C-alpha cells in the first residue's frame, strides 16, 4: 500500500501492520496485511463457511496443518471469550480473512481477536479477496500454501511451498493428542456459558475418550449427557482401556489423513464388540478404517455450519457442522444385503440414491458383520454416518457438538447414552425435541416469580 493510504488507515481502528503474502503451490498469490502473529507458516489452504464461531473454528485441533480462510468477510466482530476455545493450544497453521475487527463488541468478550492470535502465535492476514481464494480452491482443489509476513518474495515463497510436506500421509493426530490421560467432568464446564445452558445431567456413565485432537465441546457434550469422561492419548492400547471397564468408548475428531492414524484404528478393531463405541469425524473414519473401508480425499472438503444431512432412519434432515477433508467410501465396506436394503443389489456411488428413497441400506462387512448407512450428505451424496448392527457401535462424520454451528444433531449424544444403556433403537430420536435439550432460554415468568419469592 502507498504511504498515503497507510497513513490514513492508521488513523482508523486498524493499527499499522506489516504486509503479508499468501502463496499457493500453483503460484497463485494473494497480498494483504498481517493481523495476528508475525512469521511464516506452511499448510493446506482450505476454507470454512460458518457465519459466526470464528474462535471455535480456529481453535479446533482438527485444523492442524491447515491455513484456514473464513468466507464471511468481517471476522472478530464480537471479540474473544477464551472459554469458547476448543483447545488450549492452537493447532491451525494460519488464518486468512477479508477484514479483521480490532474493536469488537460483545458482553462476553475479554480481548480482541488480533490480540488473541498474536498471543497464541497464529500468523494471520487480512485484506485478501477471500472469495476469489475460495473460488480458486473450489475449482483447483485444496492445496499447499505458505503464509508469510517475513519473506515477501513471491518466487522464494513458491519454491518453499513446493518443498513443504503434503497433508496426505501425515499423522497430525499425534501432534494434537494429550500426552497423558486426564479426567473431564462437570467442574470443567465453562462459567461463561451458564447463561445459555442447563446444568449437566448426573454422571452415570463412565466413558473413555480417545483424544486424536478432541474438541472441548465434545467432552462438554458428553458430560452434559451424563458421562464421566477420562481422556486418553490417541494410541492408548485397547487392553488398557478395557481394563478400566468403561460403559463406553468415544473416538474423537482429529486432523488430517485417517490412514496415517493406524495406531488408533488398530485399537478400535479390538474395542468393537467389547464395549459400546461412538465416533465423531476422525472417530467415524477410525471405525471405517477398522472395518477395512477405503478412505477418499475430498476435493476441497466440508467445512462450515450449513451442510444438510439426512438421517435415513427417520427421513429428517439435520443442518450440521462439518470439518473434514477425508471421507469413508461406503461401498467399500462390503456388498449390500438386499433384503435389508429395500431389495437393491447394486451400490450407488452417490448416496443420495438412498436419501431419495428413504432407505438405510445395510452391507455385509467382513470384519464386523452387518453395517448400516445411517446418514447421507445431501449436498454431494457422501457418507455421513454408519451404525454396526451386530456390535454396539456407531459413528458420524459430522459434528453433533457443533461449536460452531447448528445443534440439530445434539441427539447423537443422547443416542450414545442410550446405546450404553442397551437400547436397541438408540438412534430413533425426535430431533426437534432433543434439539431443545440442554438450552436455557431464560426464566419464564413463573420461574422468575419463584426466584423473586425465594
Amino acid at each position, binding site marked *: 500500500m502507498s504511504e498515503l*493510504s497507510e*497513513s*490514513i488507515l492508521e488513523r482508523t481502528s486498524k493499527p499499522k501492520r506489516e504486509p503479508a503474502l499468501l502463496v499457493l503451490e500453483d503460484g497463485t498469490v494473494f497480498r494483504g496485511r498481517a493481523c495476528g502473529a508475525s512469521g511464516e507458516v506452511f499448510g493446506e489452504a482450505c476454507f470454512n463457511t460458518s457465519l459466526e464461531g470464528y474462535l471455535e473454528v480456529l481453535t479446533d485441533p482438527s485444523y492442524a496443518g491447515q491455513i484456514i480462510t473464513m468466507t464471511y468477510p468481517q471476522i472478530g466482530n464480537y471479540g474473544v471469550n477464551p472459554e469458547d476455545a476448543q483447545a488450549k493450544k492452537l493447532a491451525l497453521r494460519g488464518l486468512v480473512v477479508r477484514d479483521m475487527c480490532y474493536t469488537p463488541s460483545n458482553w462476553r468478550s475479554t480481548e480482541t481477536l488480533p490480540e488473541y492470535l498474536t498471543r497464541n502465535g497464529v500468523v494471520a492476514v487480512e485484506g485478501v479477496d477471500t472469495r476469489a481464494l475460495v473460488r480458486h480452491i473450489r475449482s483447483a482443489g485444496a492445496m499447499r500454501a505458505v503464509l508469510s509476513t517475513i519473506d515477501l518474495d513471491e518466487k522464494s515463497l513458491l519454491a518453499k511451498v513446493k518443498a513443504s510436506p503434503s497433508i496426505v500421509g501425515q499423522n497430525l493426530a499425534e501432534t494434537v493428542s494429550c500426552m497423558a490421560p486426564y479426567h473431564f467432568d462437570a467442574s470443567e464446564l465453562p462459567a461463561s456459558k451458564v447463561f445459555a445452558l442447563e446444568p449437566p445431567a448426573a454422571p452415570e456413565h463412565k466413558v473413555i475418550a480417545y483424544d486424536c485432537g478432541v474438541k472441548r465441546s465434545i467432552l462438554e457434550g458428553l458430560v452434559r449427557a451424563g458421562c464421566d469422561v477420562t481422556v486418553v492419548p490417541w494410541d492408548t492400547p485397547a487392553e488398557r482401556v478395557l481394563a478400566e471397564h468403561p460403559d463406553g468408548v468415544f473416538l474423537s475428531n482429529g486432523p488430517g489423513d485417517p490412514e496415517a492414524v493406524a495406531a488408533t484404528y488398530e485399537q478400535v478393531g479390538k474395542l468393537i464388540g467389547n464395549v459400546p463405541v461412538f465416533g465423531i469425524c476422525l472417530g467415524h473414519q477410525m471405525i471405517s478404517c477398522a472395518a477395512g473401508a477405503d478412505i477418499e480425499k475430498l476435493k476441497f472438503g466440508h467445512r462450515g455450519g450449513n451442510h444438510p444431512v439426512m438421517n435415513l432412519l427417520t427421513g429428517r434432515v439435520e443442518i450440521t457442522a462439518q470439518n473434514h477433508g477425508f471421507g469413508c467410501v461406503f461401498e467399500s465396506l462390503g456388498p449390500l444385503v438386499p433384503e435389508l436394503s429395500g431389495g437393491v443389489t447394486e451400490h450407488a456411488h452417490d448416496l443420495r440414491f438412498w436419501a431419495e428413497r428413504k432407505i438405510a441400506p445395510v452391507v455385509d462387512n467382513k470384519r464386523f458383520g452387518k453395517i448400516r448407512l445411517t446418514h447421507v450428505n*445431501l449436498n454431494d451424496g457422501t457418507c455421513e454416518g454408519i451404525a454396526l448392527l451386530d456390535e454396539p457401535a456407531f459413528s458420524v462424520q459430522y459434528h453433533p457438538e*457443533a461449536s*460452531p454451528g447448528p445443534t440439530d444433531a445434539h441427539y447423537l449424544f443422547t443416542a450414545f447414552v442410550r446405546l450404553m444403556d442397551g437400547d436397541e433403537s438408540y438412534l430413533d430420536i425426535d430431533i426437534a425435541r432433543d434439539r431443545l435439550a440442554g*438450552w436455557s432460554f431464560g426464566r419464564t415468568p413463573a420461574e422468575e416469580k419463584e426466584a423473586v419469592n425465594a
Partner: protein
Amino acid sequence: MPKREDLHTILIIGSGPIVIGQACEFDYSGAQACKVLKQEGYRIVLVNSNPATIMTDPGLADRTYVEPITPEFVEKVIAREKPDALLPTLGGQTALNTAVELAESGVLDKYGVEMIGCDLAAIQRGEDRKLFNECMEDLGIETARSGYAYSVEDAEGIADELGYPVVLRPSYTLGGAGGGIAHDHDELVRIVSQGIELSPAGEVLVEESIEGWKEYEMEVMRDRAGNGIIVCSIENLDPMGVHTGDSITVAPAQTLSDVEYQRMRVASLAVLEKVGVETGGSNVQFAVNPVNGRMVIIEMNPRVSRSSALASKATGFPIAKAAARLAVGYTLDEIVNDITKKTPACFEPTIDYCVVKVPRFAFEKFKDTDDTLSTRMKAVGEVMAIGRTFEEALGKALRSLEDGHAGFGADGKALGGRVEESFESHVSRPTAERIFYLAEALRRGWSVERIHEATGIDPFFLTRMADIVTVEEALRNMPLDGIDADTFRLAKRYGLSDVQIAYLTNTSELMVRTCRKALGVVPTFKTVDTCAGEFESETAYHYKTYDAEATEVAPGDRKRVMILGAGPNRIGQGIEFDYCCVHASYALSAEGYETIMVNCNPETVSTDYDTSDKLYFEPLTYEDVMDIVDVEKPDGVIVTLGGQTPLKLAGALAKAGVPIMGTQPESIDLAEDRDRFSDIMDELGIAYPAAGMAHTADEAVEVAHRIGYPLLVRPSYVLGGRGMAVVYDADHLKRYMAAAAKISPDHPIYLDRFLESAVEVDLDAVCDGDEVYIGDVLEHIEEAGIHSGDSACCTPPFSLSNAIVDQLRDTATRLALRLGTVGLINIQFAVKDQTVYVIEANPRASRTVPFGSKATGVPLAKVASRVMAGEKLADMGLPSDRRAFDHFSVKEAVMPFGRFPGSDVVLGPEMKSTGEVMGIADSFPAAYYKTQLAVGYDIPDAGNVFISVADRDKRSIVPIARDIARLGYQLVATAGTARALKAAGLSCTVVKKIHEGSPNINEDIADGKIVFMINTPFGHETRGDGYELRSAAVRHGVPYATTLSAAQALATAMEVVRQRTLDVIALQDLPQWGI
C-alpha cells in the same frame, strides 16, 4: 413427500393496496407463489385489489379477481371458483386477517376449502399475544413482562407494576399501528385510548420496556416433515424502540457469539413448532440485553413478511417460492436450491458479504406530524445494499435513498430535521435523519462511547462508522491529483462514492471518475450464491465491490438491454414503476434480448433474480450505473420506465456515450423545460393555462397579478408534487413563499393559472415516431388541483363527450409526435368550459400505466418496450384504440394519514397517497363503490351523515345532500351548512363546532355516532375546525370525503348498490391482448 394430488384449485389472497407496513414485498412473494404453483400444475385463483402488481397480470394466475379483499368479496370468488385450498400466508396481514375471518365465520367449511400453509389455530397462536405468551412459557422462552389492558385504568395498574417506560401494543393491527412507548402517565393515557380504538379486539398489551436492547430477526422455514432451517439472521442497527421496518438493519447478525446465535436459532425453530406453523416461512424477533445476554422474544409472524423479502434478496434463497411448494406437500429436501441448481433447498444459506437495509421516509409530506421513530412503522419504502463489508454496504445504501445524500456524510448535503432542535437531541432522537447526524457527530469529534450512551447503538457499528468518517476527513481538502490508486481503493472500500470524494476534494464527480479510472481503480463484481462460493452458481445475481481484481461477470454475446429500476418506494414513485420495468424485462426477453436489471429496492419483483437474465443489486446513481455499463456494455439502456430515478440520469448517461433506448434525453428536456414546452404548444395551437416564473418574492406577486388568481404555485424542483399549493390571493401567495418554497434566483418558483372546477384527465399513449396508440383516457373524479396520484379516476371516461375525447386524442397524438417520443407518454389535461388545456406532458411511463393496462387489456409497458427496441406499432396487431368497452374501471388512491397523526388529510396538489386499488364493474358508480370497499370504507346502510362545507360549496352540496337523505340517512350539519340545507327544504340536525362547546361534532365522531362525513376545506384555513374534524375522522376510521365530486360519486354509488348486489369479475373474462 411429493406434492399433494388431492388439490386442484388453490386460492391465493394478495395484500391489496400499498400502505405503510405492507408494501410491494407481497407482490414479490405472491407473484412467486403464483408462478411456482402454476408450474406445479395447480389451477390458481387470485384475489387482489391492487392493479399495480405483477401478480395480478392475467397470465400469472388462471383466474384473477381485482376485487376488494373483504370476506364478502372473497366469499363470492370462492362460491364461483370452488377452490380446494386457500393459501393465506403470502399476502401479508391483510390476507391472513381475511382468511381468519373466512375460517371463523364458517365460509371455508361451507365450501370445503382447506387452509394450507398455516391453519387457523396456528395463526391465532402467532397473532394473539396471550396465546403466544402461553406457548413461550411452555418452551421456557422469555417474553417481556406484561399485562393486557382493555381500558385506560387497566393500563395504569399494569404500568404502575412494571414501572415506566412501558411499551404499548394494540392487538391485531397492521405494522404495529397504534402502538408506542409511554414514558409517563400522560403518554400512557394518550396511546392506550387510541390503541383500544384501533385494535379490532379493543385490547392493548402493556409491556416492560426493553428499549435500548439489541434487536434481532430470524427468518425461519419449516416443512411438514418437521425439517427446519434459518434462512437469514438480521441485526438491527437501531436498538429496541424503533419498529424493525423503520430500523436500519444488517444481515447477517454481526455481534452475536456462536453460543448466543445457536441459542436463538434453536429457540426460533422451537417457536415455529410450538405455534404450529405446519409449513412455510415465518419471522421471529428477539431482543437481547447487551449487558448480560438475556434474550426475550418479541413476536413472530406465521407468514411471509417484509423481512422475508429482505432475507430472500439478501441471501438469494427464495422464501416465498419455497413456502408455496411446502404448502402443497413438498419437503425442503425435495426442493432444489434455485441458485446453485445442484444442492437441495434444505440448508442454511451462508453469505460472504454484508447486507444493509435502510428505510425510506416521507415526513416532508406530513409536515405537522411527530417525526420521532417509534414502535409504529412510518417508513414508506426501503433500500438494500450489498458490500463486502458493513462500511461499504452502508455507504451504498445511503446513496441509494434518493434523498440527496451521497453516502454517510461528507456530501455537502445540509442536515434536515427541526431547526430549533439541539444537535445533541438530533443525535439521540431516532429520526429519518439521525444516521446523518451520527456522521456529523463523529466528524465533530464525539467519541464512540458518547454516541453509544446517547443512542444505544452497538459500539460495533459506531466504530465502523467512525472509521468511515476518519477516511472522509483524511481526504477533505486534499488535491484530487494527490490521491493515489491505493488511497482511492481505500476510500472505496470504506464505501465512499465519487460524489463524496468530489465534495471532499472540491472537484466534480466526473473528474473523480476520470482520475480514478486512469489510476486503474475500478470495481469488481461478485455473485450472490447462497453458499459463499462453496458451489458453482448458475444464477447471475451480482453486486459491486472494491475487492481485488477477480470479477465474476462478463458481457454476454446476445443483444443486451439494461433496464434501470425505480429505487426505493416513496410517495409519488411506487410499485407502478417497478411494474413497468418488470414488463420491459419480460417483453424484451421474449424478443431475444439479454435483459439486465439494475435496482436497489428489495421489496420488488424487479429485484427477483429470475425476473431478468442478470440482476445487479446496486444504487441507481451515475457512478454505480456507469460502472455496470463499463462491464456489460449494453446495446441500449431504458431510462423511461422507472420514474424520476433513472430519468434524471438520462442526460448524463447520454453525454457519456451510453445508448439510451426510446425517447431521447433531448425530447425529455423539451417536455420538462417550461419555456421550450410552451413554444411547442404555441406552435401546435394547443391551449395551456397561463403561466409564469419568478425569481424573487416581489416578482412572484407581480407575475401572479398578471396571470390572475387562483394560482397553482410550485418550486422549480418537483417530485410527486412536493411543495405545490393552490393560492387564492396575494396574501396567501406571500405566506406560501415564506413557508413552503425557498425562492431565490437559483430556485425560482412557477406560477400557473389554476383552472378551478375543471375536469382533469390523464392520458397514456405509446408513440413509435410515426404513429401514436392511445392506451387509456382516465377521467378524474376529483376536480383539477388535486394531485393526479391522489385522485380517483375512471376509464373509459364517464362524463366526457365523444367530441372532447376525440380532441384529447388528437392533441395527445400531435404532441407525442412533435416531442419525438419513442415509447410511453403521459399527458395531463384540464377540461373547462369545453376547452381542453394541456397541463403537462411527460414522455415516460406514468403511475397509471399498470392500471390502464389492466383496464384495457393491452400491456402498455410491454408495447412501449418493443417500440423502444425498434418495432413499429403497426406490426404488433394491437386492437383499435377506439374500441368500446362494456366495463368501467376505477382507480382510487389509498392515503396513509392514519400513520401520521397531526397532519392534515385534505387533498391538494401535493401527492400523499401510498397506493391504489381498482374496481371493475359494468357501471361507473358500481366500480367506484368497489374501490371504496377496497380501501376499507364500509358505510353502514343507515345512520348520521355529517356535512360541513366551505362557503363556495354551499350551493353545490344541496343535490348531494338530497341524494343522501333519500337513501335514508339522517343529515347532521354545522350551523352555516345547515342553513343552506334547510333553505333547500332538507331536514337536518344542527351540531356545534368544536370551539362552540360541548356536545360538539368531535365528540359525536369519537362516540361513533357519525357513519360518513363530508367536509371541504375553507380555502387556506388548514388549522381550523375542519382540520380537527378530518383528523378525528381518520383517527376513528370514519369514512370521509373532502371534495364534492368524491361525495357525489359516493352518493351515486351507494344508491346503485342499494338496487342490486355487486358481482365479481375475473380479468380473464375481459378482453386481453397478449403481447
